[in-house]
């Protein structure tokens, strides 16, 4: 599979009245063509901010992308997204990279007809005429499973239900045949039956159009159903990266292991107590000098307080940022 996006050492900070929030502390990962990559983590772990940073969507001030590069292998050659002008970024955003946000209610313009919000993208990026754009928009609405697309084209967002609005968002995201769609908690606000509809829709579009998907979520259940590879974020860093089966069967980072233990399992008959992770996520106002999970980790030892662990290979396509070998139960010596 060809490489599509290479992110190296991304650093993003927010300069607030309370101090500097170290939101992203050096994040590196790759995305291949047609791949579904899930990014999981708790609130404040940096999963959304890292994606917004790539697309120049961090509000400055207070935020600032302070380091790293994001090489996008686009049809126009390799481009560093962090170095593009805002005009160039406008072509990428909504063109080659589509975005689906969590809250479709907030992301659609309430006073514009839904159809016009789709044709806007088409006219801007693909330079279609109004009639062509309308025809294509109706095609897209059909594609994402909206009944009576011709009629719905002229409706306003408030006339749509939550699930339907999310479908419109997806139609906008895929309108210009993007190479990547970034979906930020696309199913979180939805009920479980609608969530299942949405996951099915994403899978169908992915297989049909060959789009690479970055799926940001905190729900390890949804990830199991859609992702091929998973990045686990904690305290603004990637703490584990693995193929989806590997991650659930052999979690290598104590945080990932803890998360899986903290979930109630429908796939298990025995009723056991949940194992909670004591403590709370790290305070991002403090610059990171050690392992971000050290405060809550059961296996913490001296070295964890002295260095930031780097991603370390523990298996095929499996990396973890931990000095402790969870499977063998010993300290790693490297």
């Amino acid at each position: 599979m060809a490489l599509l996006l290479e992110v190296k050492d991304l650093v993003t900070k927010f300069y607030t009245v309370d101090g500097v929030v170290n939101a992203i502390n050096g994040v590196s990962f790759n995305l291949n063509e047609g791949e579904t990559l899930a990014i999981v983590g708790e609130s404040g772990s940096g999963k959304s901010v890292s994606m917004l940073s790539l697309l120049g969507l961090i509000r400055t001030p207070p935020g600032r992308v302070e380091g790293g590069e994001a090489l996008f292998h686009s049809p126009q050659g390799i481009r560093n997204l962090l170095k593009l002008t805002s005009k160039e970024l406008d072509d990428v955003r909504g063109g080659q990279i589509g975005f689906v946000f969590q809250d479709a209610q907030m992301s659609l313009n309430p006073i514009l007809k839904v159809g016009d919000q789709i044709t806007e993208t088409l006219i801007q990026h693909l330079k279609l005429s109004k009639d062509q754009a309308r025809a294509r928009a109706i095609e897209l609405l059909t594609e994402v499973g909206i009944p009576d697309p011709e009629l719905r084209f002229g409706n306003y967002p408030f006339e749509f239900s939550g699930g339907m609005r999310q479908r419109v968002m997806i139609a906008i995201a895929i309108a210009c045949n993007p190479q990547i769609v970034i979906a930020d908690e696309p199913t979180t606000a939805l009920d479980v039956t609608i969530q299942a509809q949405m996951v099915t829709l994403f899978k169908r579009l992915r297989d049909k159009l060959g789009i690479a998907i970055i799926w940001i979520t905190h729900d390890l259940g949804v990830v199991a159903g859609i992702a091929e590879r998973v990045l686990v974020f904690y305290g603004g860093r990637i703490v584990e990266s693995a193929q989806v089966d590997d991650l659930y069967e052999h979690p290598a980072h104590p945080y990932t292991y803890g998360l899986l233990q903290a979930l109630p399992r429908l796939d298990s008959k025995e009723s056991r107590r949940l194992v909670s992770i004591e403590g709370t996520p790290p305070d991002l106002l403090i610059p990171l000098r050690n392992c971000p999970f050290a405060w809550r980790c059961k296996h913490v030892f001296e070295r964890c307080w002295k260095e930031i662990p780097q991603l370390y290979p523990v298996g095929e396509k499996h990396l973890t940022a931990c000095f402790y070998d969870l499977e063998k139960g010993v300290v790693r010596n490297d």
Partner: protein
Amino acid sequence: MTEDGALIRVVNLKKYYPIREGFFAKVHRWIKAVDDISFEIHRGETLGLVGESGCGKTTTARAILQLQRPTAGEVFLEDLELTQLSFQKLRHLRTRMQIVFQDPYASLNPRHSVEHIIGEPLVIHNLLSGNALHQRVVELLELVGLDPAFRHRFPHEFSGGQRQRIMIARALSVKPDFLVCDEPISALDVSIQAQVVNLLQSLQEQIGVAYLFVAHDLSMVKHISHRIAVMYLGHCMELTDRNTLFDDPLHPYTQSLTSAVPIPNPKLERKRQRIILEGEPPSPANPPSGCVFHPRCPLTEDVCKMEIPEFKEIYPGHFVACHLADMEGHSKIPGIALVDIDQA
């Protein structure tokens, strides 16, 4: 339904809201938020109440506590009927029934110290004062796993999980028999959810409080509940013990709901057969005729469009509101393998 030992008994509970239209604000239609629900909760038991947003779970919970007066039906606390009681009389009973809300950020007064917040119910009900009150607050903080030294702090100094613990401590201060937990963990991160759920379970073991646990996260509800009631559009569709609900659900809606719950196990997820329901729940202002689920049900027959199904006991303790439900499995949607551990 039997009466022995039921702490809370809900009988044909209804809560309708008027839709007023026009110049004279005449009532044109009613939103039937809760329509004819009956169940009981026993001492020390957890009843889970699940359903999608807008199905009436929260309204049911509030109508039981008389925070919203029901339109019709009866609610018993042991043998005391609550719906006809005056506000004053209810107030005394509040020491026996308490509630924990979803949003720990919005439900704590930011200007009050933790000691004030937790002790307030005890002061209101004239139960304790002075040193005894102080002692009890310290005890409660310890009970929910917070450092008693935190008692002079204010809500903004706590994280979401800690605030939820404060909420629980306040609710338990008056030693209630019955606690409504209305989506108590939805606003919390996964690692913190487990902390709060474990706390609720160990408190139940220690003091024998009964919970009505309202939530939309089915795996968590299964984990914490003894029995589970499934709601759809104001109606109770199915009620049974938690294992039967997931292993042998009789209502087609329950079957599709349990099949849609994502399971954190990639291999199982790939093999699972799902029933993806078409469309979305209709508006409660304009509910379908007959069985409210019939427009989305894969098994709909003519009778479903005409008659509201009775909430009947198919097996002992297993209640279902479906015309097709019987012991021969006519209400089973064919072709779905439910969660099968052996496949994993």
